[in-house]
């Protein structure tokens, strides 16, 4: 089955076309096709996962035997068996896409740990979102269309995680962007929604330029001659790690690719599209935030990790671009989440902040921690988004201050799943977020050069406290206190509640996938995520001596949990007890300025729209007007005048002179020839006969005497 994993993305891709063609005529308007395709893809993904586990275990078995054989008799054999030094060959399939001047561009499948993991996450979340959507967007005027693009979105993301070459990566990357554009603007009749879709698309274009530059740089840096250069991800990583590519080229490529991550994964300073993307239907937000769009950036970094690891010297430095971007995003995103009244925007900024954790983890070299956090985050964030959708379904609004409050009495299922996912996000022991966030913090304290990435551990712990506080505020405004809306909210139907419970269940147990080595449980339960999903081979930085997996640190775990609880406590005191300086923003000018600063989202939108776009568009408009008036008009007028002169010349000389005389001449020649030939046609048969015989005689003479 592993060789045929490429079928998985093709299933939803096929369902996209089928839904577009036949969806409207089907009894469930095409949703059944989407669910069937993604469901089948999910089943296949589970099969692929189990077979991948076998594949890894076989490789481990072979590796440990080999290691034992090579160090037989020496005392190092035990250590060799304990450290995971075996290689797991990724499974690849490829076909030639096109050829150009001897250059083979191949499209194919690269199946290794992270790809297998993503197959599972994407198909699972997508399946639940599909089921959820049948209720959530029921009766929508573009219901069929919506499901078609959900399918394409899933297919693009699945294609992206299995992409073998960087070109294929770009294609899927752009497809993901297009689908997010279409789905964010699903209700495009309202201008705000279509603006949000455009914003998402245009901001992403900025990052796409970075991706393109990075890929091109890597291609030209990967070899000296055309035949050596490659788009193959495995090759690029292997060469980068083996030192075959110059450090400067890797640095340039990594910096360009960081721009791509910033836009796709909503990192500061290109995060501005992500909160606006909440204009789309809530299931789409869940899909974007948990499994597809924003994860693409993280995945790309993890995929080209050799390039980043070498280019940014992650293993031996104490600070680098990727970690700084992530760290700034952790705090910046969390800060903004405090002042949002729209429940989805709180979650959106929470995603920005959590993605910051992942980018930061990648920046400090904790690859497994980043992907583990991605894995757990997918479940609890999808649960939170779908929960917020369930709430808005009941109160027909997203405004927590005006239309919510006290909903825990009306919507018990939504309330409990939301609470579980919130606890997982905050990192309460033993839910999913505790394990993954702790691994990132442990990584920050242990990895890197001599100084370690301690600054980023502080950032991470501060972020954890802020996360706890803003999520408590969100839960308070939504579910506690008195109901402030109108009418009677009601619990959502089973197609909404069941996916919520599934995701809540996963938010509880997903963290156990990578529980650290503590000697409290058998070895075979420990670090399974790292064991199965971390790539092991020459294309992954684990071949370098500086690469290490962080150890579980009880101190940090305890500290981060206490600080999280402290954040909850602060928010609890503030909202429930009314303690602290309430209404401080109305009394203190400093506090008010800070509040305004946050409400205006650090003025990034103003910077982009007014300063950059506004500053550029005036001069550009004037310059283009000047060019239009002077250059283009001049060219057009000149061309007109030139063609007038040319036309006159052609008429006078060529038409009247040459063409007409040719026509007249041919007439005269025909008449003269006719007059001459007329004499011959006397009508006298004997004269014709004489001519005939004379001509025959001449030809006969020629035949005899000349030839």
């Amino acid at each position, binding site marked *: 089955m592993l060789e045929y994993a490429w079928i998985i993305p093709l299933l939803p891709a096929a369902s996209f076309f089928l839904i577009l063609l036949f969806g409207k005529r089907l009894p469930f308007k095409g949703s059944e096709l989407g669910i069937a395709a993604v469901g089948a893809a999910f089943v296949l993904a589970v099969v692929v996962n189990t077979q991948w586990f076998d594949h890894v275990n076989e490789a481990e078995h072979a590796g440990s035997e080999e290691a034992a054989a090579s160090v037989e008799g020496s005392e190092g054999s035990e250590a060799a068996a304990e450290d995971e030094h075996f290689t797991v060959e990724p499974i690849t399939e490829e076909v030639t896409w096109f050829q150009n001047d001897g250059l083979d561009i191949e499209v194919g499948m690269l199946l290794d740990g992270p790809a297998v993991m993503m197959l599972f996450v994407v198909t699972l979340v997508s399946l639940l979102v599909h089921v959820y959507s049948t209720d959530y967007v029921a009766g929508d005027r573009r219901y069929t269309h919506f499901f078609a693009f959900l399918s394409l979105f899933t297919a693009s993301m699945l294609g992206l995680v299995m992409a073998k070459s960087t070109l294929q990566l770009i294609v899927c990357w752009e497809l993901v962007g297009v689908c997010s554009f279409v789905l964010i603007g699903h209700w495009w009749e309202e201008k705000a929604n279509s603006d949000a879709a455009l914003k998402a698309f245009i901001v992403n274009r900025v990052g796409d330029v970075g991706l393109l530059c990075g890929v091109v740089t890597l291609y030209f840096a990967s070899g000296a001659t055309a035949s050596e250069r490659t788009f193959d991800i495995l090759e690029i990583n292997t060469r980068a790690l083996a030192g075959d590519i110059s450090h400067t080229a890797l640095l340039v490529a990594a910096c360009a690719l960081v721009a791509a991550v910033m836009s796709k994964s909503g990192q500061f300073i290109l995060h501005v599209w992500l909160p606006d993307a909440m204009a789309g239907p809530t299931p789409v937000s869940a899909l974007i935030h948990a499994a597809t769009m924003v994860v693409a950036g993280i995945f790309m970094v993890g995929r080209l990790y050799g390039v980043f690891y070498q280019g940014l010297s992650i293993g031996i430095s104490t600070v680098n671009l990727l970690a700084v971007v992530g760290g700034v995003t952790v705090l910046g995103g969390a800060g903004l989440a405090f002042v949002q009244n729209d429940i989805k925007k709180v979650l959106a900024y929470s995603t920005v902040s959590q993605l910051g954790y992942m980018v930061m983890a990648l920046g400090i070299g904790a690859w497994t921690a980043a992907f583990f956090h991605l894995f757990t985050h997918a479940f609890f964030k999808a649960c939170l988004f779908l929960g917020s959708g369930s709430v808005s379904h009941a109160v027909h609004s997203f405004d927590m201050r005006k239309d919510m409050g006290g909903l825990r009495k009306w919507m018990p299922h939504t309330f409990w799943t939301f609470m579980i996912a919130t606890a997982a996000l905050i990192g309460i022991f033993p839910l999913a977020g505790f394990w993954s966030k702790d691994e990132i913090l442990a990584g920050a304290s242990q990895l890197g050069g001599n100084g370690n990435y301690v600054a980023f551990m502080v950032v991470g712990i501060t972020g954890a406290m802020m996360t706890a506080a803003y999520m408590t505020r969100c839960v308070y405004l939504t579910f506690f206190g008195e109901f402030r809306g109108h009418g009677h909210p009601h619990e959502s139907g089973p197609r909404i509640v069941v996916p919520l419970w599934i995701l809540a269940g996963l938010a509880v147990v997903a963290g156990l996938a990578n529980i650290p080595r503590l000697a409290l449980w058998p070895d075979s339960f420990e670090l399974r995520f790292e064991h199965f999903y971390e790539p092991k081979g020459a294309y992954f930085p684990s071949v370098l001596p500086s690469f290490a997996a962080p150890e579980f640190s009880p101190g940090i775990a305890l500290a981060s949990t206490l600080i999280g609880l402290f954040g909850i406590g602060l928010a609890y005191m503030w909202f429930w007890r009314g303690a602290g300086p309430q209404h401080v923003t109305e009394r203190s000018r400093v506090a008010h300025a800070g509040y305004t600063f946050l409400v205006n989202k650090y003025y990034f939108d103003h910077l982009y729209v007014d300063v950059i776009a506004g500053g550029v568009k005036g001069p550009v408009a004037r310059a283009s007007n000047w060019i239009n008036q002077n250059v283009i008009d001049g060219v057009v007028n000149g061309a007109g005048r030139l063609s007038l002169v040319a036309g006159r010349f052609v008429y006078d000389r060529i038409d009247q002179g040459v063409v007409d005389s040719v026509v007249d001449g041919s007439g005269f020649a025909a008449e003269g020839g006719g007059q001459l*030939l*007329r004499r*011959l*046609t*006397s*009508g*006298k*048969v*004997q004269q014709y*006969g*004489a001519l005939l*015989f004379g001509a025959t005689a001449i030809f006969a003479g020629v035949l005899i005497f000349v030839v």
Partner: protein
Amino acid sequence: MLNQFLLLGAALFCIGVYGVLARRNAVMVLMSIELILNAVNINLITFGAYHGDIVGAVFALFVIAVAAAEVGVGLAIVLIIYRNRHSVDFDDVDAMRG
């Protein structure tokens, strides 16, 4: 031997051509055509005998048969012309003059 027969054929051919081109009487022209055909027949038979091949003589027989048919058609045309114009003079028959 060969030359005499060929010369005879050539002479007959020339007489025939002269007759076709110079005579005004349509019947005489037809007869001259017969002379040309017979010149050809002589050549055919001569070469046939020279090569010891019967095919030349057989071919001559065909030509005679075709010539008979041709004369029949030709005389019929002459007869029609005579009925219409009361003359068989070729100089009078110039309806094809351009």
